[in-house]
């Protein structure tokens, strides 16, 4: 009970440590989702609209990658970025950039797989009309992404949810360095193990609030958009 009160006090007094952790968490997760969207949306569209040998295998693999274990991704990125790894000279290990890279790897398959499904369903519906209108390939992709935008927002939200809640990968490649790579999830893990429950609970409350607020905003955006466009 006392921990809960202290946690609320940290939030209400805008504790600088707590704010810095929240800020870094949002930067890392939103950056990862943005990069993953840039890769995943066109990739999903490409797989949805093209037919090639082994396509079904690619779809199964993409779906399977949605369940990538974060610690395994963290380990792989760690090996790539460690001093003796192929990308070691870049000096990115234990930086926010490494955390963004790890989360991008986790989020891209989620966005790509969900986008592929959304765009493929829409393509089945639009195929005859767009073909009859002689719409070119790039214009088709743009049309399908635009007309599927409200469903694709859900794909981005799923990606953000994965990134925001993830701890295994970023703790390995970020190192949980105080004031530099400490995010909400890594801080919660650390503070809980240290017995500093107020900060852990406070961060947990903020994390849940952020996820709820972003999902609610996206839901209202989707509803408003559907009223206008459908």
């Amino acid at each position, binding site marked *: 009970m006392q921990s809960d009160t202290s946690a609320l006090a940290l939030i209400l007094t805008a504790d600088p440590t707590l704010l810095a952790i929240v800020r870094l968490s949002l930067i890392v997760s939103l950056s990862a989702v943005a990069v993953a969207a840039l890769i995943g949306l066109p990739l999903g569209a490409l797989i949805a609209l093209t037919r090639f040998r082994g396509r079904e295998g690619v779809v199964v693999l993409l779906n399977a990658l949605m369940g990538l274990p974060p610690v395994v991704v963290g380990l792989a990125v760690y090996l790539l970025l460690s001093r003796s790894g192929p990308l070691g000279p870049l000096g990115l290990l234990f930086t926010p950039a490494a955390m963004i890279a790890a989360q991008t790897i986790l989020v891209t398959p989620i966005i790509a797989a969900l986008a592929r499904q959304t765009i493929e369903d829409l393509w089945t519906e639009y195929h*005859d*009309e767009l073909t009859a*209108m002689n719409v070119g390939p790039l214009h088709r992709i743009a*049309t399908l992404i635009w007309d599927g935008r409200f469903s694709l927002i859900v794909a981005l939200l799923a990606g953000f949810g994965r990134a925001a809640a993830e701890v295994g990968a970023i703790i390995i490649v970020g190192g949980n360095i105080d004031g530099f790579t400490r995010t909400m999830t890594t801080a919660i893990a650390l503070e809980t193990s240290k017995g500093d429950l107020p900060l852990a609970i406070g961060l947990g409350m903020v994390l849940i609030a952020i996820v709820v607020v972003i999902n609610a905003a996206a839901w209202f955006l989707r509803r408003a958009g559907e009223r206008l466009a459908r």
Partner: protein
Amino acid sequence: MRAMPADLPIRFEDVSISAGAVTVLDRLSLAILPGAPTVLIGPNGSGKTTLLRVAMGLMRSSAGRVTWDGVADAPPFRRAIVFQRPVMLRRSVEANIRYALKAAHIAKDRHDARLAELLSLVGLDGMASRPARKLSGGEQQRLALARALARDPSVLFLDEPTASLDPASTKAIEDIIRAVATRGVKVVMATHDLGEARRLAGDIVFLHRGRIVETSDALAFFASPQTAEARTFLAGELLL
């Protein structure tokens, strides 16, 4: 009035389409010429929709040859089709038409004028900002017609354009078809509705089991059909 339309005549030379063991079109030869609407009639499964899709260039024949003004594989720049259940893009009425104008590479400075003209032609003025998917079935058909006409087609294919519509919506669609045909656009239409065929057709193509059984001037066809199949069909009896 338009001069000799591009893409016409459309010639089918011994065209067959097979789907597995089923023959959908069977060695079909036909010339679609400029002039009054050509109406395809025949029982379900006779090949009307497939014929329209091949004529539009949406399907390739398994055998035989199709040419548009003498050219095989001519891209559909001057052809347009309205499907039996047209799909509305998830945007407004206006945006649907603008999309078609853009896809048809109509100069952008002409878009506003064409939009107003098309909305007026199909009777959707005042509905430009409505979401297309919230229109009634008849309104959606009229929007699909406007979208097809945005391509400034020389040939317009219509697949059962008034199926499932109430009489008022059917009349609205038929009026648009007449207006379009009067402007020189060749209309090729499939219908189940013999009354509609009588009202609109300049000539009739009667299909059964993927074959053309009879082609004729519409008045002559309805007055004195030449084949037993056509007589059976016009009598409203089941044609097996």
